[in-house]
């Protein structure tokens, strides 16, 4: 269910190859958000992408999440270029290989925790019963077995992020892509969330890419990629 093509199984999970992204805001007003970024993420790796606001890390997140296409360069999943994928293939990639965790949780307020976790399963063929079972199991795994019928408004920030993590892992993705996952949480809750993400990464062998501006969060990763003004300035293995 990870959407991997067996033919390119030996290719790295994710490669960024001289990626640039230019936003045209108006005539003669171009913003170079990324100016040639290259790196690789292997299966089961834990990578932190750090940088201050304006460094280009949000742009990079969108490109890694296959939500956007680079202006030049290549983003490849399992060796396949995102640029060559059509709308349906991109949707299948996001649904099958990537689990998003957002800073602002992005839960649908009118749905229960269970239905929020079911959401990505709706876009693949599975029976309603199977979906419920998998979503329930995912919620159990993040420690919310007793909250499945609650709506987001009835949950604390930490609990909401746990629901979002359950939603990200319910599809058994090859990559968890977390954008400032602790940004809206207090320090202790943030630490709990990071611990949970790292557990999942360890136990399931899921690659974990965390985008953050917090040094403590970045320090937990095995490898750190630092961005400044759209370029990689340092890349260090811990």
């Amino acid at each position: 269910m990870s959407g991997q093509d067996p033919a390119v199984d030996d290719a790295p999970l994710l490669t960024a190859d001289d990626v640039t992204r230019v936003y045209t805001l108006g005539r003669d007003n171009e913003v170079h958000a990324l100016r040639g970024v290259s790196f690789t993420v292997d299966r089961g790796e834990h990578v932190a992408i750090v940088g201050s606001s304006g460094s280009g890390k949000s742009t990079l997140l969108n490109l890694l999440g296959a939500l956007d296409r680079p202006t030049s360069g290549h983003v490849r999943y399992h060796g396949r270029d995102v640029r060559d994928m059509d709308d349906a293939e991109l949707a299948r990639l996001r649904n099958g290989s990537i689990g998003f965790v957002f800073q602002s949780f992005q839960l649908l307020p009118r749905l229960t925790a269970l239905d929020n976790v079911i959401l990505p399963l709706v876009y693949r063929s599975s029976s309603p019963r199977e979906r419920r079972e998998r979503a329930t199991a995912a919620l159990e795994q993040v420690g919310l077995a007793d909250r499945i019928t609650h709506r987001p408004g009835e949950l604390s920030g930490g609990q909401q992020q746990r629901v979002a993590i359950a939603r990200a892992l319910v599809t058994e993705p090859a990559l968890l892509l977390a954008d400032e996952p602790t940004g809206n949480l207090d320090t202790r809750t943030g630490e709990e969330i990071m611990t949970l993400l790292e557990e999942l990464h360890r136990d399931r062998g899921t690659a974990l890419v965390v985008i953050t501006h917090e040094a403590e969060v970045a320090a937990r990763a095995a490898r750190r990629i630092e961005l400044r003004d759209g370029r990689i300035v340092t890349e260090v293995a811990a």
Partner: protein
Amino acid sequence: MSLRESLRVAMQALRANRLRSALTTLGVLIGVLSVVLLVAIGQGARSEITGAIEGLGSNLLFVLPGDGDFGGGPQRSSFVADDIERVDRSLPGGEGRAAGYVIGAEAVQAEGNRFNATVFGITENYLGVVDRTIARGQSLSRSDVATGRRVAVLGASSAETLFPGQDPIGRTVSLGAIRYRVVGVLERVGTTAFGPDVDRQVLIPISAAQRLFGSTRVDAIFVRAESTVGIEADREAARSALAERLEEDEFSVVSQDEIIGVVGDILQILTWVLAAIAGISLLVGGVGVSNIMLVSVSERTREIGLRKALGARTRDITRQFLFEAVALTGLGGVVGLALGIGAAELVAAFAPVPAEVTWWSIALALGVSVLVGLVFGVLPARRAGQLDPVTALRHE
């Protein structure tokens, strides 16, 4: 995403905004209701009026004043009593198949009871030609007509009004200052919403009526053909007989089918006009749907971005919003149809206007309401599907 899943998600979204969904549906509901009801009234009128003409009996030819153009309104009659004879004698295979009448309004009274009646001056064979039967007493005779005898046959309602609970045969009624002896009462025909109430007629010999009205005119001549096959021969005979005396544009001979055809066509157009007027309200309902769907798309921009990030294709999103629009209008269509049929039944039962729900107005109302959903849903749905996930996710 399966169709069933799209439908489920659409219904979920509509339920989340119950009041708004209900109000939007209401617009379509009113549109469908008015289409069904107005078409029912138009169709009811059509079948009642053509039914009334058919009720005169089949195989009828109408010799009418004027050139037969119904659009010009009533025309002055040039017929006289001799023309009835002339037509009757011309018909192949025996006489007595042509009847003439003159019509007028007159106050009628008897024993203190009084009302304004439609007075028909008829030839003795008129009732046979238009297929009406005497309930009690007898009809007008040839000699009554020949001598202008002051005798009358009453419609069923006329008899009840003038002689409540009594036998009118042999009694006297007055038309103006002239008294007539009642010799017969007609079988009841029943009320209709359009045209004169035939049960409130008073029938007297045509010669007596011409004297009463102070005129020698005859308003129309009816011919009963012996069979459907004989109609054309009768029509030709009547036409050439009258052409000896009258100009071409002073008379016309039309069959019952032709009259039903023309009247039916006019009323069908009326029905379509009613449907079109009601259709405008359906259109306004559709614009309301489009409007609310656009609001919904912009409110749920983040949701759309999220769904795309989680694996929704462009067409999954488009379909979801299209289903929402069609669910809104389809629901309005079904409820509007049910209420429209109910309203038509109420009108038919309690109002003097007839109403007849036809299968095609049902199909039209449902089809159009779904179509309205598709047409007015496409724009917002496409807009939703084409949202860029990056921008959508960041939308406040």
